């Protein structure tokens, strides 16, 4: 699998632009009973100094060894050869919800006909060499469309910057 969508939790401010962009790109109408492919959760935690709030923009993680694929009784969930993402063949979906209990991220939702509806990694955009709509619109740069190695490099660079900043402000403890 090549690229997928990653979330930098520290950058997400819960603005919901990704959700709207996803709905627009995929012609999702909530008023017709169509669930969003992407959701933003607000997580509150009581801390000693008050309440700590963070936001999670969550959609299908397109797991490499996807549990939903293994759980699907009909073969409706398969790897898409073009995007490398996890795709749904709705004509095979029986709405049994086996994928719901398999998904570690609570992603699966079902359309008005009871069939699985989820992020398809904006296959039309990706096949055209574009980023998924949610990534394209994120004003914080919290959503990243890249491969695992590149994302890991970004994380390592961020960690190195943090260490450098601490050393600059507090010294390295050496005389």
């Amino acid at each position, binding site marked *: 699998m090549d690229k997928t969508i990653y*979330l930098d*939790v520290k950058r997400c401010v819960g603005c919901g632009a990704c959700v709207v962009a996803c709905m627009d790109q995929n012609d999702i109408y909530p008023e017709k009973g169509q669930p969003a492919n992407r959701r933003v*959760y607000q*997580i*509150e*935690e009581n801390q000693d100094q008050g309440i700590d709030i*963070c936001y*999670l923009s*969550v959609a299908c*993680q397109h797991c490499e060894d996807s*549990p939903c694929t*293994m*759980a699907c*009784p*009909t*073969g409706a969930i398969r790897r898409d050869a073009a995007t490398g993402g996890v795709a749904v063949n709705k004509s*095979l979906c*029986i*709405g*049994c*919800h*086996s994928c*719901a*209990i*398999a*998904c*570690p*991220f*609570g*992603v*699966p*939702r079902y359309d008005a006909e009871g069939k699985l509806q989820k992020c398809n990694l904006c296959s039309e955009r990706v096949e055209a060499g574009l980023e998924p709509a949610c990534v394209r619109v994120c004003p914080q740069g919290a959503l990243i469309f890249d491969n695992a190695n590149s994302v890991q490099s970004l994380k390592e660079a961020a960690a190195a910057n943090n260490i450098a900043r601490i050393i600059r402000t507090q010294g390295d403890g050496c005389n």
Partner: protein
Amino acid sequence: MRELSKMVKNIAIIGNGCAAVECIKALRECGCNDTIHLFSDHSYPVYNPMLTTYYVAGKIDFSKLFPFGTNDELARTFNVRFHTRSPVMTLDTTEKVIVTADGLAVSYDRCLIASGASPVRPPIEGIHSGRVYTMRTVEDAIGLKTALEQKPTRVLVVGASMVGIKLVELFRAAGIDVCLADLATHLFPAAAHPDCAAVLAERLRENGVDLRFGTSLTRLEESGAGLLAYFAGDTMPERVDLAVICIGVRANTAFVDRNCIDTAAGVLVNERMETNVHGVYAAGDVAQGRNLLTGQPQIVGLWSNARYQGRTAGRNMAGEHDVFPGNIPHNITHFMNMDFIGIGDVKNYDKMRKYWDGNHFIQLFWQEGLITGANLVDSYTSSGVIRQALIKGLQQSCVHNQGTMPLVQDLLIRKIIMEVEQA
């Protein structure tokens, strides 16, 4: 007795279910070029037992029972020699030979036992009547679908199980009166806490289902065009047109020499899917792997579990190293526009919290600070996160296990726990 290919290196696979297919796929993906012989009791392609009720209900076509395609397609794709209608009678692990019912003997180098499980019929009078059905195999599905063409007006479903409830759903959808009976005192006795079962039972009654719990079926008697079903302590029988028995399944191990291969309810395996006999593996509903909550051997009869086990067996049989550490019992069933979810252990707990707003029901169970069980009704969106938390052994406070789950999962489970705790 005919002998086949004694000199070449053979892999024997007993059974034609998803565990067998995943094993074969893994073998070939790992570059194994040995000859694969697959032995099946029947001639149907690999089918999913769970789909049988969907077929009977008319929700899927017959061809959709077979998610891996035809036997010919599998044989061609993975170079497999199919021996259909060839039940294995003997697995001789000393001579490393398999003997089928029609006398075919095939020597093997490595063997996978993936023979699945069969429905249990209680040993009571009348149980073998032609009006008594089970629901597991393709033949079962064809038989019941044919019976429904006779327009029954009232049926008995024995066993308030995941299969039983799907039968209830399809019968009610067809306008048929249903009595659902179980020896246990409530629905889903293995997976549901009585509190959760009570919520579901109320909804079933609202949908016109007669529930009969805490009583055992003692006798079935054909009477005219129907059946009389007698229950313990009740002189008046249930009058029905047909009955379906779905009280559980038993691992198919008749060909296994229990003096050689360690067995309990099924064939005992380690995390590499190896039995105690070198070169013999087991996977699927016949295999007794590890329950991650109890640490004890347990058959977890799930499609995905069988696939993971089969894949793990295949990789190891090909000479790779792979482990499937075990699983926890978990089920989701979607019926009559509702979901029931049972995860882990809901019987043994030292703390329990319940969230119930009239629409959504979440019940969490803890043992020594660990979430060890959950019941959910119409809350499927939380089910996967909770299941993952159980598997990862996430502690209630989430503090001690920080870093054991990806951050997103970690935060999602905290949110669920907080909602239930504050209810």
